[in-house]
């Protein structure tokens, strides 16, 4: 049963890659490399929304999704502790996935 975290931003190039990178590193530390992390363009999100377990968005979200949505902004502008807090939050959601 493969779980997937989707990191989305406006271009699928810069900020979402940053988020994906940090999440991957944390998942690896916690031994959860089984969870797939990908980065996508937010405007393509309809193609992914039935196949994602957590959405981390690098932009403001103005609609509902079936899965939990988390703001990825701390990955861009947060202090070290704010980033860790966000990663902790994501790991909490990951634990609930089992």
């Amino acid at each position, binding site marked *: 049963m493969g779980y997937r975290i989707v990191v989305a*931003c406006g271009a*699928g190039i810069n900020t979402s890659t940053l988020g994906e990178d940090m999440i991957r590193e944390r998942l690896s530390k916690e031994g959860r490399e089984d969870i797939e992390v990908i980065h996508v363009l937010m405007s393509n999100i309809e193609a992914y929304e039935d196949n994602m377990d957590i959405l981390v968005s690098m*932009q403001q979200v*103005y609609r509902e999704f079936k899965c939990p949505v988390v703001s990825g902004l701390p990955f861009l502008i947060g202090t070290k502790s704010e980033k860790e807090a966000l990663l902790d939050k994501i790991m909490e959601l990951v634990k609930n996935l089992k």
Partner: protein
Amino acid sequence: MEVIKTAVSWFLGLGSTVIVPIVLMILGFAFKVEAKKTIRGAIMTGVGLAGLFLIVDLIVAALQPAVAAMATRMGLSLTLVDVNWADAGIAWGWPGVAGVLLITLAVNAVLISLRITKTLWVDIWSYWHGSALAGFVWALTGNLWWGIVAGVLYLTIGGFLGDWTAKDIQEFHGMPGISVPCGTTVQAGVFAKLITPILDKIPGFKNWDASPDAIRKRFGLLGEPVVMGAILGIVIGIAAGYNVQKILGLAMQVATMMVVLPRMVSIISEGLIPIAQGVIGFMREKFGNREIYVAVDCAVTLGHPSVMASTVILYIIAILLAAVLPGNKLLPIASLAVIPFWVGSVVPYTKGNVVKTVLVMALYMIPVLYIASVVAPVQTQAYNMMGQYTEEIAKGTLLGSFDMGGDPLGFLIQNVMRLLGLSVL
């Protein structure tokens, strides 16, 4: 001296797909990034560059004859081949990129310490706008150092413009502490900040609006690059007088370009960003506790519904403008992808009003189209000097784009260089 010259010559002859990974590895080790990340990232960036140049080869091969046929048949002088973010290939591949990066960082560190700027320029990826302009100026002046100066100047001024628009963007998009000093985007924001109050004086203008949801429902599919690419390919094929077979073929080629070009750029970033993290972390640690705005990519501003709604209308307007403006040479296709980012910085000033946003953006695109038309030879020469598309360029093909070909600030800097007598073109 001769030994050094030969060595440098040999090094440059390796081509950017080899040079860039080497430079990145040096940077990665210098900033103490984990070795595994540095090596994988550096090679990945080279891969992304190689892939990028492959796809632009496809674009040039497919579009150049189509655009030429269109020009002959319809008397339109839209002769430039739109390569859009392939300029990122120049940015990360030209010899002076490390200079632009490191010197801009140093200048930013000094300006932050002296409290002259609030924008902490940690968005390393977005340096590509400045590095691309630097590459253009390298082509314009034939001189690497003037290129670096231009790039650093561009990014530093961008930082000040970011300072000026930061609060407005923070408020409208609900994201505290950010600054969006990004290339062509921050200039769109500045343009909007200046012009919207003037437009508001037009009686009635203030109150016209259109619903983002209604627009999304009607034009939703147009917001998808792959669909838009196919439609544009068909339109161009018809205008070029192609038979049905060739029209459908062109439709698929343009659709391919619209989707694959950004993906290649994304691969470049996949390689670069883990290494950039080291640089970013270093800057954050030194300066994290001042009152600063953290520079972020304009991609964060695309969330508001008015952005995509305005964008799909603007796709159509951009093409119409390109067709009717006398003397314009660029038909934006791949370049349409940059429109939503401009809109993201305009909507804080139009307050999300779709009609106003469309009008302000249409006005911004007029000088951008003309600038792109004029800068194309310099831009093309930069590709030439990097050993890309030299055959087509020799035959007279010219490449162009909104970002960075149509960049107003970049154009200004190029002209200053010209005025100083530094141009060799």
